[in-house]
């Protein structure tokens, strides 16, 4: 594929790289121009990428990107975090922390320029969602208030008048009542936190009386039935805002709600192991390169998210490519708004029990608060109970936080044989659907 002779109905093109992954570029050469500057900057400022780029030979920036090996999460939390930390100097910065759905968290450093670049992207997303003067935006979360404060700045830049951060705790009834009284015109939330409230958040207003015009969902995949339930109950538009901790949010749905638009010169999107869906659409693992990030930038960063990307035009008229999140490459389930991978649990437990090859996790009953997560482990590990428990909560800080918040209770159960076998499928399905 190449970017030549693009018919008007296209919004960009896929360029195949030498390593088999594909990169999405825009129609008028801005992706190439931004990437060229970006590679020059990394060559000057990042020893890690200087060494990698030296192996990529010459050519256009897109061609060189196509020869570059993917950046792993281990690279991000190792050499790239160290480079960022060393380069911070006296400039002010904030940090963002995420487990990246593994048992070893990643720390992201953001200086003022990074924050503003991300704000520009977020403003674009909020504008696309229709936020503006007269709105009262309420962000709902169990923690992570710092990101809500960031959203507040982006919203205010569009003239949004009122902003509230609503803190959801294990006893969520008062918070939903507060949401009703706050009379928001816009809500930003993680879908599973709304789902966790059961009927309560959906029954806040009689039909046709909800003040909410728009609900922006972040942080995880929005299931079709969740979208329908929210849209119906609140009589509002529901729009997905997609991103990662390492790169910030960069894609969101328009009114058509058919894919998240993104700007390929601000966040360069690639696909590893791509498979064509049609001549304008492909699926694969999302790779990200971040020309707008100065402090901890990445090239071909492996997100672990499976996405579909299309350069076919959207009926809304916006001429940017679109992305559909499809889930994660690794087995994941979402709990109280936090993503967990099965591998992360195993990795954490293996700190104490290196030969552990499987464990089963029982979720629920979910009607009870806190929700219990029971880890079934071999009997011979019983004498390590204390250490195993500590390994889980020390290794996976989001789990630790949810336990502290009273959202989750971790139990360890020991028995001769693990209840895996033929029930494994049932258990996985249950963990997936009870969100």
């Amino acid at each position: 594929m190449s970017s030549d002779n693009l018919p008007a109905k296209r919004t960009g093109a896929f360029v195949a790289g030498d390593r088999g992954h594909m990169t999405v570029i825009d129609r008028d050469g801005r992706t190439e121009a931004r990437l060229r500057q970006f590679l020059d900057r990394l060559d000057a400022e990042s020893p890690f990428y200087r060494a990698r780029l030296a192996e990529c030979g010459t050519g256009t920036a897109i061609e060189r990107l196509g020869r570059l090996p993917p950046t792993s999460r281990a690279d991000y939390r190792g050499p790239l975090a160290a480079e960022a930390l060393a380069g911070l100097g006296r400039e002010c910065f904030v940090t963002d922390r995420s487990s990246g759905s593994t048992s070893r968290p990643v720390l992201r450093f953001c200086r003022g320029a990074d924050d503003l670049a991300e704000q520009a992207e977020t403003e674009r997303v909020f504008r696309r969602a229709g936020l503006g003067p007269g709105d009262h935006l309420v962000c709902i979360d169990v923690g992570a208030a710092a990101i809500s404060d960031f959203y507040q700045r982006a919203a205010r830049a569009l003239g949004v008048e009122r902003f509230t951060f609503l803190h959801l705790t294990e006893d969520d009834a008062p918070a939903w009542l507060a949401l009703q009284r706050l009379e928001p015109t816009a809500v930003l939330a993680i879908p599973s936190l709304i789902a966790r409230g059961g009927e309560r958040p959906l029954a806040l207003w009689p039909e046709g009386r909800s003040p909410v015009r728009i609900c922006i969902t972040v942080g995880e995949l929005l299931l079709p039935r969740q979208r329908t339930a929210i849209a119906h109950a609140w009589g509002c538009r529901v729009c997905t805002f997609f991103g990662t901790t390492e790169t910030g949010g960069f894609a969101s749905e328009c009114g058509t709600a058919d894919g998240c638009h993104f700007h390929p010169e601000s966040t360069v999107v690639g696909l590893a192991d791509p498979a064509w869906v049609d001549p304008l659409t492909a699926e694969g693992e999302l790779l990200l390169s971040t020309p707008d990030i100065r402090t901890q930038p990445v090239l071909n960063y492996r997100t672990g998210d499976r996405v579909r990307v299309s350069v076919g035009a959207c009926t809304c008229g916006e001429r940017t490519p679109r992305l559909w999140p499809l889930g994660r490459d690794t087995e994941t389930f979402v709990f109280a708004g936090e993503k967990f991978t099965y591998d992360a649990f195993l990795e954490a437990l293996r700190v104490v029990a290196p030969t552990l090859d499987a464990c089963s996790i029982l979720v629920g009953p979910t009607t009870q608060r806190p929700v219990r997560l029971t880890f079934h482990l071999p009997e011979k590990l019983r004498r390590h109970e204390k250490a195993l428990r500590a390994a889980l909560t020390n290794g996976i800080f989001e789990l630790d936080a949810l336990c502290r918040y009273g959202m989750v209770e971790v139990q360890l159960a020991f028995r001769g044989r693990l209840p895996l076998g033929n029930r494994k499928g049932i258990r996985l399905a249950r963990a997936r659907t009870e969100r």
Partner: protein
Amino acid sequence: MSDPPLLAAARAACDALPLYRALWSRRPTVEADIPYIGAADLHCLDGPGQLHVAGADPVGAVPPLRRGRPHLGFTRIEADGDWLLRQRRLIGALSRLGSTRLPRRMALVTDDATGPFAADLVELLAWSRVSASLVYAEAGPRSIDRGIEALAPDLVLLVAGVERPAIDVPLVMVVHAGDRPAAATQTARLLVCDELQVLASAGAGETTYIPADDSVRLEIDPRTGLLAVTSLAFTAAPVIRLQVGPGVALA
């Protein structure tokens, strides 16, 4: 006999950080050897790295009260142990103000400048299962009142410097150590600095501050009359007799 806490902290900081060795010229043997220092004494630092104990895993930045305006001129990074101490001080100080009972639901009144600081408090409070929502002041006093009314909190914490809300609800205000000491003593106060966050509290009507717990030492520098703070316990980022603002009455 073990060293008094201040001397022990200073010696530990001296052993862990070349910065203090350079600043003091020798390892203190008595408390009188430990000089009081100001932000200007740290002007040579290139950034947070030199205030960070090697090998201590950083968990994040400590937000100053006002975004982008840290007292030392750069952002500080802390380790898990420092975070836990900050959390303990906040909870300790709030519990004391509430006569040993911690509120269940709080509303924090904040604004664009103090937002990151307030958001950080939310996470510290959540750790002790206190629900803490944020009301932003930019939309005006009427909107603040409506926000507080809707959230129905047990306690309101004024993080931004705003007028008292018209709602009748227990109130605590955040006072930055670098600011002119608050004249209004009819409101309970939390005294904070950018380096260690919550330092002390004073109840409504009280004229003196009581330190949040024994992880910090508050002193008045006898030569300047300024308030100086020491992290008696630390993992990554010790501050020793650092002047943070005008003197206050200490219990």
